[in-house]
């Protein structure tokens, strides 16, 4: 049918099938900012447009509905390359981070400001109520609207967006727009989906309907015979190689326990066959033509089921070791089932796959038995955390094409180099034959650390020679994406009457699901990021991870820490209550402080021997003091409704800044012919502002404006190696590499200047704006130096390089306070106040750091109260969309939500900086659990803390 309408002021005539939806139409017509992140669920709002001036979801409109109407897309907000007032305000406020929904948010807010030039917070909430924003939460939108509102009256309006730090520095610690903010909020080409060329093929996956089964027969002939089908890949014809899908440093602590396709399926949604076809429709048709016969096996879903003596074995294949094989391996393998394939273990990780144990770790300091015997009170409690989805707005996506004999992968990844290694391993080719180009990442939160679809996409292109796109549906995210490992954690605490802790024991039982992604490190992290918060000479932990048949698990922001913190900090609350002491006093008595030696870390190396570390900076004292003041700690609040009780809770938290001794980041920086700079960073900015950090560091060192430094990052052909963006390593590792590369270049500049000026290098220094000054009074601009060095007889282009590794740790700390209202009659819980006070050393990008804290805290409020994957007794995930899963939207924001930066100066961090993002996920669960207890006297020890659990604990049902 012919559709006439006006788009962004231009009359247009489109030809469309009546069943086409408007988002699809607009996107194919080049309005690429109109996206769809939930397959027409009508929830996430990535497809927001204005129809006759009113915001609507384009995906829920059929083309007939726009006949004769006027449409505005986010593209309409721009004047040429200039952002609109609200777009610029969003960038300035730091709310544009991964940015997938930023164009839609800008459109909604611009419609709001048109309707109501002086909107209240409630009006902003209302305007954004149909928009999902996972990365930064929503808090900073209020500020963006305030800024825009004022700038509409006075274009020169300026305000303090965030506190600034380090008076001695020019750009580090200062509020500066995120360098890719404009591109993201404008909706320009940025994500993998924007790179797909016309004529590319589609990959679709046939997934297992069974939680545990052998494929006894698979017939793909009918599918292959369908015109337009290019390949069908199954366990019968895929490369016969085992690899791990966890993007970790090599050698990985995670076992290689799967091939591209396995004869055994181990969860509902496991890969069975991939179809590569000319169009998505043909691919779908081919999927339904594949005939599979299964021998269904009994399945297990919980740690308790996995531990049972007669439990079905999830990974019953031959176990191999790359190093450190036990002497009885042959005997161990006697009972292996060849159809189960293999488990290749890189080095001993206490694995016992034939008893469903994927990994284990055990350690202690002091004498725990002695510690407990000295205690006046001993409590033991068990806590359970649930399986949590990352729910990135941009669902997992991979686009592969061939360049001669090289595979080029456009990827939305946190780990370009691990991805290259794993793809090369999977395909059996060398790494030089693979190029990974990390595009902007529309939300990762850990799940884009894992190689979930790139291996098969790359192979599909390698096999067919065609460009191939594989884009997860939202439903696939729920069955084929890495999730938080569910854990059952028992904590035993011994204490004196005054609250001094004499012994701590933690028993972590983790559920890794079908494969061992991060099976050692995530559960260990539950201990390594919680136990060191308490200074106690006697500590012991046991960590065991079990294989089961739940959907896959892996990395998620905070890694194991949110779970360990929940268990330990809630147990501390229970101890305080048992002793009749104030929780804050008990924390104060036992907490880590500046200069503490964290001895327990010697047992908690990730897959290798750990080292005890000293705390070189710790902002817990100011964080606790300020937080307690903010929330009026100790004051009992009363609600107007007699059924509603109010309570307060607190938790202290920590994380690391990368993995000292394991992580490795490199960068180089070149002086260009006019004296500006091109920085190549291996770091993978997943929206958090890492590229901005790197540019700031280089600009600071080289005494130039940030505009004089451009960056290319995460391209395996054109930038140097980096282990990737995980374990809170961005600022500390990748940032340090950029800083040291700039320092290296600085040396080059000074020595070149010395040669040109014929003066001793010691007399020279860099100065703003981009020049070398001598004590003699002579000066050389960078332009002059570049001209000289790059002239035919000069010393050549000046290049700085750094490869950064370290054994030193920089721990970020925080204190999170919550105030909740609990309705005793209905069980409803409302978060009235949430204060997240965090020490990230020097906040390099203060406004972006605040965004990370808001985002992480809000995500973890979601995990604590709402989000639920829910499997039925056959292992089928009952939730296939964002709505039923229960992601929090702006309506769920705490009434009073504040993130506070508590600066410290870490001697090891670049410019004193430490990590900020992951730690933000660790506080909500224990702070809220403690607050619920304070309100109504019950302990909820499992996630999510629902009204039904409240009612049961209160004995109402």
């Amino acid at each position: 049918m012919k559709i006439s309408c006006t788009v962004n002021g231009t009359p247009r005539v489109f030809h469309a099938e009546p069943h086409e939806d408007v988002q699809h139409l607009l996107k194919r017509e080049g309005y690429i900012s109109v996206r769809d992140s939930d397959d027409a669920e009508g929830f996430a709002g990535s497809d927001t447009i204005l129809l006759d001036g009113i915001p609507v979801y384009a995906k829920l409109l059929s083309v007939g509905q726009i006949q004769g109407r006027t449409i505005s897309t986010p593209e309409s907000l721009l004047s040429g390359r200039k952002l609109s007032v609200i777009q610029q305000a969003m960038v300035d406020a730091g709310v544009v981070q991964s940015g997938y929904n930023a164009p839609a948010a800008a459109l909604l807010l611009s419609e709001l400001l048109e309707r109501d030039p002086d909107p209240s917070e409630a009006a902003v909430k209302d305007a954004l109520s149909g928009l999902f924003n996972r990365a930064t939460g929503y808090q900073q939108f209020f500020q963006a609207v305030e800024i825009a509102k004022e700038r509409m009256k006075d274009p020169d309006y300026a305000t303090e967006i965030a506190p600034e730090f380090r008076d001695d520095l020019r750009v580090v610690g200062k509020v500066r727009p995120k360098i890719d903010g404009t591109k993201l909020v404008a909706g320009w080409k940025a994500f993998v989906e924007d790179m797909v060329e016309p004529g590319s093929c589609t990959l679709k996956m046939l997934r297992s309907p069974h939680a545990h089964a052998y494929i006894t027969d698979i017939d793909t002939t009918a599918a292959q015979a369908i015109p337009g089908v290019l390949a069908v890949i199954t366990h019968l014809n895929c490369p016969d190689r085992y690899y791990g899908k966890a993007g970790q440093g090599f050698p990985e602590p995670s076992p290689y326990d799967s091939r591209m396709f396995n004869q055994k399926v181990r969860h509902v949604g496991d890969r069975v066959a991939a179809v590569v076809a000319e169009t998505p429709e043909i691919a779908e048709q081919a999927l339904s033509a594949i005939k599979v016969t299964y021998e269904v096996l009994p399945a297990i879903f919980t740690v308790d089921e996995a531990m049972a003596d007669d439990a079905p074995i999830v990974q019953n294949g031959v176990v191999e070791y790359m190093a450190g094989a036990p002497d009885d391996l042959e005997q161990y393998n006697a009972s292996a089932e060849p159809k189960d394939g293999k488990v290749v273990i890189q080095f001993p990780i206490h694995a016992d796959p034939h008893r469903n144990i994927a990994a284990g770790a055990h350690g202690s300091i002091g004498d725990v038995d002695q510690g407990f015997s000295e205690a006046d009170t001993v409590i033991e409690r068990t806590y359970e955390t649930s399986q949590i989805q990352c729910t990135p707005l941009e669902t997992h996506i991979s686009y592969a094409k061939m360049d001669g004999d090289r595979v080029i992968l456009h990827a939305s990844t946190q780990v370009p180099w691990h991805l290259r290694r794993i793809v090369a391993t999977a395909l059996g080719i060398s790494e030089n034959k693979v190029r990974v180009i990390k595009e902007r990442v529309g939300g990762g939160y850990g799940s884009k650390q894992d190689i979930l679809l790139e291996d098969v996409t790359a192979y599909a292109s390698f096999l067919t020679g065609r460009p191939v796109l594989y884009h997860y549906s939202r439903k696939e995210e729920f069955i084929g994406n890495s999730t938080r490992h569910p854990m059952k954690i028992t904590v035993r605490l011994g204490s004196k009457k005054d609250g001094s802790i004499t012994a701590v024991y933690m028993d972590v039982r983790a559920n890794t699901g079908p494969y061992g992604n991060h099976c050692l490190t995530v559960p260990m992290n539950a201990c390594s990021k919680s136990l060191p918060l308490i200074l106690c000479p006697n500590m012991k932990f046991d960590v065991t991870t079990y294989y089961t048949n739940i959907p896959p698990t892996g990395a998620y922001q905070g890694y194991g820490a949110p779970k360990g913190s929940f268990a330990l900090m809630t147990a501390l609350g229970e101890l305080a209550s048992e002793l009749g002491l104030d929780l804050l006093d008990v924390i104060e008595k036992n907490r880590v402080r500046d200069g503490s030696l964290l001895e327990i870390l010697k047992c908690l190396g990730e897959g290798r021997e750990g080292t005890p570390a000293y705390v070189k900076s710790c902002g817990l004292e100011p964080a606790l003091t300020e937080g307690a003041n903010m929330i009026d700690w100790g004051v009992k609040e009363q609600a107007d409704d007699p059924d509603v009780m109010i309570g307060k809770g607190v938790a202290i938290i920590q994380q690391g800044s990368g993995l000292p001794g394991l992580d490795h980041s490199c960068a180089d920086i070149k002086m260009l012919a006019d004296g500006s700079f091109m920085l190549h960073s291996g770091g993978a900015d997943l929206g958090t502002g890492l590229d901005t950090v790197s540019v700031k560091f280089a600009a600071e060192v080289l005494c130039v404006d940030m505009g004089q430094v451009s960056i290319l990052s995460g391209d395996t052909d054109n930038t140097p190696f980096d282990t990737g963006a995980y374990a809170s390593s961005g600022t500390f590792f990748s940032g340090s590499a950029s800083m040291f590369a700039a320092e290296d270049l600085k040396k080059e500049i000074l020595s070149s200047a010395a040669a040109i000026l014929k003066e001793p290098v010691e007399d020279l220094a860099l100065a703003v704006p981009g020049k070398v000054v001598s004590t003699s009074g002579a000066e050389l601009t960078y332009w002059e130096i570049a001209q000289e060095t790059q002239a035919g007889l000069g010393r050549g282009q000046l290049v700085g390089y750094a490869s950064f590794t370290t054994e030193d740790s920089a721990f970020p700390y925080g204190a999170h306070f919550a105030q909740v209202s609990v309705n005793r009659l209905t069980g409803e819980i409302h978060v009235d106040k949430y204060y997240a006070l965090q020490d990230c050393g020097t906040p390099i990008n203060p406004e972006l750091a605040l965004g990370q804290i808001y985002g992480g805290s809000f995500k973890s409020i979601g995990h604590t109260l709402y989000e639920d994957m829910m499997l039925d007794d056959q292992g089928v995930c009952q939730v296939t969309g964002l709505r039923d899963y229960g992601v929090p939207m702006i309506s769920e924001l705490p009434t009073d939500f504040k993130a506070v930066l508590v600066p410290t100066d870490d001697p090891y961090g670049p410019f004193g900086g430490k990590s900020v993002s992951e730690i933000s996920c660790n506080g909500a669960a224990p702070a809220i659990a403690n607050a619920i207890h304070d309100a109504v006297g019950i302990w909820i020890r499992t996630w999510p803390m629902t009204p039904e659990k409240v009612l049961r604990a209160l004995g109402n049902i």
Partner: protein
Amino acid sequence: MITEFITCGSLPELLVTRNRLANSCVLIAGGTELNRLGSPVAEKELAYVSLSGLGLDQIQFKDDGLYIGSMVTLQQLLDAEEDPLWLKEAVKGAGSRTLRNMATIGGNIGSFRDDSYLLPALIAAKARILTADVDEQGVLIEEDVPIREYTEHASAFNGSCITQIVIKRLDRIVLTKRYARTVQRRPDAIISFGAACDGSALADIRIAVGALGTGVARLKEVEEGILTGSLTTHEEILQVVKKTTSVTDDITGSAAYRQYLVSVTIADMLARCKQIAEGGTCT
């Protein structure tokens, strides 16, 4: 799959078109139910017959009540000054303004969803539905149906065209509550309670519940029990709720939890209604 998108110049033309295409077409209002993922018509080949442009998007106060055109969007309902508060409260169950900008009241009723935003409240308010049809000669036939009848005999009205929703008894007390873990998550339960004031006593009680997995339904035994005075506490109400509803466990919670919520909320609403009636502030 949509085979055709048909727009009509008048209501009779639309009704004739709909009759002509019979089961191979469906009326489309905002399209948020029809076009969403998992749409009830996703697998069918259907023509869309559009209700747009027929003037059905007006809210009017008349002498005998409030007349709401079926194409009035949920956001219009929220913005309109004339609307009673309970209706606005029910509309807020649709937590997304963007969705409310698209979703219509007619489409909401026509969807007959178990978790309907509006049906429980409209039943409690004793709203009426005006439908339109044409006979074989093309003569317009209009019907005025109590909403209770419309929902109880949903299949009989399948395909009928709602033109207006009328709320005549604006003096009724109506309370409505939607429980959901997050505003936009699938609701655990929806409860609406309506009553007229007979002096300082309550009369003509209507209780409707939704989101229990069995379609929006009236709790007639509870209504009767309250009127006769045999049900006063939530424990008593719970016994009847358990007997008369067949709720199953689902992702929103267990049956026991949701039956508890229903009964505790009815008891609370009853107490609040009584207070209003006794305070003489019924209108």
